[in-house]
């Protein structure tokens, strides 16, 4: 993720402040990373490098911890945060197809943020309303029973401009959808891919 102007300085000052509060001990790695993410919203590479130098462990070990725990994110949160539920019920009703649709539309992978930082895409485990599966949280608002066609609607509502060529690809998905083959993920899998 490319940093914006002035962002590097901000990261450096925030991390330096956080590091002052902790011992320079590798046992403090997790609390330090949590504090950094608490202030910055994510773990920028520059921050991980500074933490590694402070606790005297190789940079790759900090990266290793940062990529291991779901709690940590390596990309800045977007202006609009999209969380696709991958809990059991959502998974069974095609949550992965919804995730694929978002990935294609936003041209990012799960866990990433668009270049303009408008959208970030995450997977979450259960959000606690399995009867509404598959569920997507859009800026913490629940979107229930999401179909691949709803993905475009959600993004348009958030001001995403979908270019024409892609909308045409989208209509192929729609062609099958009116039948609403509820809860038959196997059938949908074919046309959504």
């Amino acid at each position: 993720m490319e940093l914006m102007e002035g962002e590097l300085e901000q990261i450096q000052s925030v991390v330096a402040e956080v590091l002052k509060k902790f011992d320079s001990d590798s046992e403090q790695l997790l609390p330090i990373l949590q504090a950094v993410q608490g202030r910055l919203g994510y773990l920028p590479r520059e921050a991980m490098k500074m933490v590694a130098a402070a606790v005297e462990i190789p940079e790759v070990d900090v990266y290793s911890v940062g990529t291991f725990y779901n709690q940590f994110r390596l990309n800045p949160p977007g202006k609009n945060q999209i969380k696709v539920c991958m809990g059991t019920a959502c998974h069974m009703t095609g949550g992965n197809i919804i995730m694929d649709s978002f990935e294609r539309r936003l041209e990012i992978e799960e866990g990433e943020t668009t270049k303009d930082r408008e959208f970030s895409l995450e997977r979450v485990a259960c959000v606690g309303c399995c009867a509404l599966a598959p569920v997507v949280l859009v800026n913490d608002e629940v979107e229930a029973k999401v179909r691949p066609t709803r993905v475009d609607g959600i993004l348009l509502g958030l001001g995403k401009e979908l270019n024409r060529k892609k909308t045409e690809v989208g209509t192929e998905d729609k062609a099958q959808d009116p039948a609403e083959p509820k809860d038959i993920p196997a059938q949908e899998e074919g046309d959504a891919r």
Partner: protein
Amino acid sequence: MSNNNGNNNGNNGNNEKMVTITIDDKQFMVPEGKRLLWAALENGVYIPHLCALEEEEKPSAGCRLCFVEIEGFLNPVTSCTQPVKEGMIVRTRSKRIDRMVKNGFELLLSNHRLNCGKCAANGSCELQKIARERGLKLRVSRMRKLENDAPIDDSPENFSYDPAKCVLCGRCVWVDHNMAKVGAIGMVRRGMSRRVATFGETALAESNCTQCGECVRACPVGALAVKE
């Protein structure tokens, strides 16, 4: 050799106490506190293993292949973590162990790119050795094959890294951190996407890797291999 086992041994120094252990009905004299895997290997008894390094103070015991049965123990134990004691009676083969090793081995193969004929490690590969010693097949029959499609990193001058052949034993990471003392590679992510990578998952040549080649020598399979 005793220095590494100092924690388990109260008996450091040159005049090591020797103990008698029985492995598969044969008796061996080995230094007390030595880890069973290495004691067995030194005496010509083969126990399958991938992740173990003798120098390691705390073995990760991650490959789950070096199981043995020890008399007095309810369940099989990993021999790489077990210090020897006087009078220990060990069996390297039993129904339970064979089953565990077979399952573990097939799981390892299930996401391993099996292309032995073209692999740089053909002939020196630990997986081949385990298959030969235990009469296992280098084939996945009971499981679905999930091959890793991460690209090969051939940026270093003399060697390359193929994640699809990696068994995630962690030996390269250990030698990188403790022998070469570079700290260029580590284990990143988790689950199916776990792999050995550099900071930020860049190519090795773009990282702080010194290309010393320690990790290539440590690799039990053909994941890290010298270029031809």
